[in-house]
């Protein structure tokens, strides 16, 4: 469900699913955990293909953030519509740095 691309030492992880819901959250978390355990700690999550996330999906993102630890960063790019609204409603927009584009997220993390 994920495709990855390394840019300026930042791992860009693109979610290739339209929904990250309770049925997909465990697989999402497993795949993200593998990226993190492979040593990546600057990650941009590209959500531009995603049009729905529920609280289980959001919980999986939070779990990844915890797994990254204090030296890691997880930025979110391309969240729109219902996805962006969920971040705001749950105040998770204070936890994750939200970027309009992957480019601006990569730029910030690689700086």
């Amino acid at each position, binding site marked *: 469900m994920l495709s990855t691309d390394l840019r300026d030492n930042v791992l860009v992880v693109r979610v290739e699913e339209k929904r990250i*819901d*309770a049925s997909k959250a465990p697989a999402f978390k497993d795949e993200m955990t593998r990226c993190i355990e492979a040593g990546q700690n600057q990650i941009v999550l590209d959500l531009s293909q995603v049009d*729905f996330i529920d*609280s289980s999906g959001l919980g999986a993102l939070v779990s990844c*953030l*915890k797994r990254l630890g*204090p030296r890691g960063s997880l930025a979110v790019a391309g969240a729109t519509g219902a996805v962006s*609204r969920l971040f705001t409603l749950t105040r998770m927009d204070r936890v994750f740095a939200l970027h309009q584009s992957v480019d601006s997220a990569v730029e910030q993390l690689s700086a």
Partner: protein
Amino acid sequence: MVSSISLSIDSDLDKVSLLARAVRALCEDLLSPDDQDAVELSLVEAINNVIKHGYHGERGKDVQVAVGLQADQVVIEIIDHAPPMPPQVLDSTSEDAFTFDETDIANIPEGGMGLALIRMNMDEVEYRSSESENRLRMVKRIVPLS
């Protein structure tokens, strides 16, 4: 205009999105895109709760959804036959779930947000249990186009 439809799925998380998309489509002409998002999220959270907490993830149990399209509101009822939600879950207020300290990463919630999200997204939420069933009734009012 009053019309209603009943839909049902097996208690399988893989099937929740089918129901969500169906109900969203029913609301398309009545609600704004933001309100459709609100209804879809509330429905998904409610059904996830039934499957995960009510039926403990067991498949083969029934989850019914009744959708009433009325002139001024959309009424969605989720009916299940699991043990009822504990009263302490229902008593928690919706703001509690999201009053975390964002600098304290270890304590940012990973779950327990479902009911709070439903309350934030719907205009009325009511939960009733009887001997035979549990019924979560959620109402979204239709805002007339100005």
